[in-house]
């Protein structure tokens, strides 16, 4: 069953049973997250299926990753803060100085941020280790998982982000400190047990404990038990132990020296003391080298061997104690080569690993191995198996340190590869879209465009009235403010300069708003996306309202888009003329309709003529607009048109008749015909004949009155 994830409820006993029934599985990936819809489908075979008809068929949904749970989410969101700070550092420093990485101040900040990661992981580990009740559900990742991240990240800092100025300093003590923090040996319990004994050397754990404590540089524990040997029956040992205790407590520590040269000198003199101890030991007679339990001399000799820094003894002792290659390596730096430098580590570790290979089944150990041996790319590969978070964040720091190459054969640099793998994991939770795109947009072109794909698919929820208070939300939209997710998404596009994605999102928003008849906001989104075709479609929809809902509703909708027209003229003076022209007509025509509704007929008449004179009326609307003139022409109380104005109307009217007789009636009559229930071009022409009659009468009236 290895590697097959089975869905429930099961449909068949064996996978072959599906095909036997003429069936097969099929699937489609979801754009929302990393899930798939899986369904039963006819098998693609040439034989007709033998299957029971009309059986209810299921659709399954399966995700590639578990959605991050509460504690994991905290981890993700809080480490993002550090990641963002790091990106910021890179952005500002890189732009100022191409050699920024050699700047001590920048390195200090980098180191600090890396240590922030380490401290944060440590907190998570502590939190996860506590047996506290968990109201937010069980932990998704165990305490041990966070411990692994902790050891790896802190090792990375020790090895690759030394304090500025200490790059060339001996690293042994730091390595030993790392080992002592993360892999505690010998255990406190053993120490407690031994210290409770009167004659602890009679216990079989005594010498191993003392050896390990010395190997680990735990001088206090070593000295404590060496002092206990003052009660040992052998005077030789009493004496030797006292000398050794003083040697161990006087071992030079790098931190106590201001110059490395002084440290090296002190170390050499200290080694001389160890040599003297060895000479002293050799003088103990063979017969005196045993007590009742053990050959104390051999045991003691091993410890002296460690202090002497004899590599073969260090390694043998480690093997006997069950310690691994890491301990040998750290002890190497403390005892074998006190001037052990970072650049020496890979060679030494390679030699140690030849005899003490790492555990290939332990991913954490593999990460350590790769870090020690300076194989950054391998370290990332193992880290990604442990947790994609680890690989992404290590890679993010490795790149500026030039530990991994910026170039790649496959257009995606190693750093981006790991950052994108982590981002893809984040996409398993659609609610984490902001973080997902933060990581994607920190990458090169490939990552950025992947970010676009995620960003444009963030549901805008413009229909989701429940998300905001209905009344207030509506009011804010009307006021031209963008609310909710759309605002967020738009802002993200601005922040990362993703203009293409922003325009797509604006176009989608405009479409949705049109659907809701929120034409005003739709126009502003269209113009924001510079989508002039879309703008034209919205204007068409608004003009359509005249046909479907009548002049009053039309005037109301058109007044919604009027402010946008003004903005458009100011902000996009060169914006595509045709569509703006249509928009202008819609606005002016609605003004005209409003004047009619308000019975400001004189103004309406002037407006009507002006629209024709300014040539804003599209041909397809001539007939409708002319037909609107009938009411004004027939107005009894006054003559609303000038003679010239009326003549203008007549000219347009005649053009329609002429063009219709030439067979182009459709261009002029279509819309008027649509306003007549069950009407066609003939009915539309009939209406225009009433316009002609009204005009004739108007001319007659004005002729009479002007006499």
């Amino acid at each position, binding site marked *: *069953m290895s*590697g*097959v*994830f*089975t869905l*429930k409820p099961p449909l*068949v*006993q*064996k996978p072959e*049973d599906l*095909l036997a029934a003429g069936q097969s*599985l*099929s699937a*489609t*990936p*979801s*754009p*929302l*997250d990393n899930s798939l*819809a*899986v*369904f*039963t*489908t*006819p*098998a*693609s*075979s*040439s*034989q*007709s299926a033998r*299957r029971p*008809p*009309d*059986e*209810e*068929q*299921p*659709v399954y949904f*399966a*995700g*590639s990753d*578990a959605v991050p749970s509460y504690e994991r989410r905290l981890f993700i969101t809080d480490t993002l803060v550090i990641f963002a700070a790091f990106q910021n550092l890179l952005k500002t420093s890189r732009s100022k100085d191409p050699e920024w990485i050699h700047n001590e101040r920048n390195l200090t900040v980098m180191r600090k941020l890396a240590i922030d990661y380490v401290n944060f992981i440590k907190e998570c580990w502590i939190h996860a280790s506590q047996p506290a009740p968990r109201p937010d559900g069980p932990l998704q990742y165990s305490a041990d998982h966070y411990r692994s991240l902790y050891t790896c990240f802190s090792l990375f800092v020790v090895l690759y982000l030394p304090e500025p100025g200490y790059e060339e300093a001996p690293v042994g003590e730091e390595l030993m400190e790392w080992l002592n923090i993360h892999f505690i040996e010998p255990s406190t319990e053993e120490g407690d047990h031994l210290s409770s004994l009167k004659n602890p050397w009679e216990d079989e754990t005594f010498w191993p404990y003392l050896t390990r404590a010395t190997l680990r540089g735990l001088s206090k524990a070593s000295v404590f038990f060496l002092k206990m040997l003052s009660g040992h029956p052998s005077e030789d040992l009493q004496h030797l132990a006292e000398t050794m205790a003083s040697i161990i407590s006087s071992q030079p520590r790098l931190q106590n020296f201001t110059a490395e040269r002084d440290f090296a000198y002190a170390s050499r003199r200290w080694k001389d003391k160890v040599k003297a101890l060895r000479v002293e030991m050799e003088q103990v007679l063979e017969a005196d080298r045993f007590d009742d339990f053990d050959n104390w001399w051999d045991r003691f000799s091993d410890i002296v061997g460690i202090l002497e820094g004899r590599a073969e003894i260090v390694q043998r002792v480690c093997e006997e104690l069950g310690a691994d290659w890491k301990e040998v390596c750290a002890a190497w730096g403390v005892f074998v080569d006190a001037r052990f430098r970072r650049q020496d580590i890979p060679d030494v570790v390679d030699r140690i690993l030849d005899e003490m290979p790492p555990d290939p089944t332990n991913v954490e150990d593999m990460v350590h191995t790769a870090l020690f041996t300076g194989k950054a*790319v391998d370290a990332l590969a193992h880290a990604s198996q442990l947790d994609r978070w680890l690989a992404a964040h290590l890679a993010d720091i490795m790149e500026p340190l030039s530990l991994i190459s910026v170039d790649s*054969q*496959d*257009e995606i640099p190693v750093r981006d590869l790991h950052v994108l793998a982590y981002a893809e994991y984040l996409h398993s939770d659609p609610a984490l879209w902001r973080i997902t795109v933060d990581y994607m947009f920190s990458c090169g072109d490939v990552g950025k*465009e*992947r970010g676009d*794909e995620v960003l444009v*698919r*963030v549901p805008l929820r413009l229909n989701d009235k429940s998300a905001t208070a209905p009344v207030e939300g509506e009011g804010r939209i009307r006021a031209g403010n963008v609310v909710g997710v759309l605002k967020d998404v738009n802002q993200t596009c601005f922040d990362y300069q993703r203009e293409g994605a922003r325009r*797509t999102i604006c*176009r989608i928003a*405009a479409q*949705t708003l049109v*659907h809701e008849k929120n034409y005003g906001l739709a126009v502003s989104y269209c113009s924001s996306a510079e989508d002039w075709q*879309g703008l034209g*479609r919205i204007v068409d*929809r608004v003009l359509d309202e005249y046909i479907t809902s009548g002049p009053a509703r039309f005037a109301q909708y058109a007044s919604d888009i009027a402010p946008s027209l003004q903005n458009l003229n100011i902000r996009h003076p060169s914006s595509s003329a045709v569509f703006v022209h249509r928009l202008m007509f819609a606005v002016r025509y609605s003004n005209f309709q409003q004047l009619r509704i308000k019975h400001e007929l004189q103004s309406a008449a002037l407006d009507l003529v002006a629209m024709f004179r300014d040539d804003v009326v599209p041909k397809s609307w001539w007939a409708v607009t002319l037909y609107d003139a009938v009411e004004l022409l027939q107005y009894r109380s006054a003559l609303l048109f000038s003679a010239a104005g009326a003549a203008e109307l007549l000219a347009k009217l005649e053009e329609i008749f002429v063009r219709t007789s030439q067979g182009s009636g459709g261009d002029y009559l279509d819309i008027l015909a649509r306003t007549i229930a069950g009407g066609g071009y003939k009915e539309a022409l009939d209406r225009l004949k009433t316009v002609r009659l009204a005009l004739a009468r108007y001319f007659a009236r004005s002729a009479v009155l002007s006499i």
Partner: protein
Amino acid sequence: MIQTGVISTAHGDLVTDASYDFYGLRLATCSLDQRIKLWQLDETNGNWELEDDWKAHDAAVSKISWTHPEFGNIIASASFDRTVKVWEQTSGIGMPEPQQPVQANGSGSNASTSRWIERAVLPEARGTVRAVEFAPHHFGLKLASISSDNHLRIYECLEQPSLTTWQLSEETDIQALPLSPSASPFTRAQQTNALATPTQTSSSLDGASAPLIAQALQQGLQQSSSTSQQRPGLGNREADGGWCISWCKDRYWGELIAAGAGTSGVVKIIQLMPSNRPITLLTLDPSPAVEGALVPADPDAGGPSSSAITSVSWAPSCGRSYHLIATGGRDGHVRIWRVKPGEEVEDDMAADSEDGQWSASIVADFENHKSAVGRVEWNITGTVLSSAGNDGRIRLWKATSGNVWRPAGSIGVEQSEQQENENPVERDIDWNDM
């Protein structure tokens, strides 16, 4: 992996296609039962609720496709009844009444306020329509269909708000499609290079004569299938064939579509141009010289299979300088093609410049399904490929560092060992182990 949900009774018969909307919040499914169903994700509890359900066609529905949301809520369905239909969701409130009488959705519609209205029927196909896909949004409201008459058809919506008028802007026989805009023998020879690129990666081919064999076979195949097309009811051609399309999602290269038709086992990369006939830029032909030799002898696979391509999927290029196109075929192979566009050269120079040629190589070829592959599809970023086979498995594929494609898990619906032990524990499978 984890299971996130199930609709236990989705359709009354096998599901032929499922398609998520742009956001993945809705799922359209279609079935042999001739119905389309719309499911909506309830994000509060992860359940899928039935939103709409109607009888869409007079035969099995084969494929379903959503438009980009900038055009509204529109789906197209293809059917064995030889039609493509365009459906639009209207939200009860304030939609303009359609001008023509339209067929409202069937009796199965529930009491929701939204309704899916049939806006257009596209009846031009002379065979069962096997696939339909809307073009990427930057090319406007367009759709492509392919049917068992081997014709690729491109329709363009002329009146957008009403969606009623669709112009058949292109209709072309895939198999008869010329390889280049010019039919001169010189350019033909040039194109053969592109056609034969797979020989560089396919171990089953040897010798430099392969390209010529490929070309000869290619032409022979075209002839034989175009003649067989004129003889109705010949053998099991429909059942053995595969018809599939996938648009290039990228805007930069113009309107490109990958299409496979019939039993040939090749996929053509077709360029559509507004004022010209479509041309084939490149043919993805895995192993023309050993045509048919790789057909698995699996008796369970349902009789003699062909090498027909059943599914093609063009990955979103997402900033890469090359394209990835996945194919799945009756020969049991899932292949990933890396397609390199020709360099920018002047049109008249393209013919005599090697740089102007598109080229392709196979970067992954998996036979893990060991039986006919029915579907391949990319995720939105083109990083994960899913494939489905007659082995009753969904398999996932991912690129690892060094651009090596590897298995990334598989999904089945059989009784698991754990379930047999009545210990249903959700397992989180390590992707890297599979």
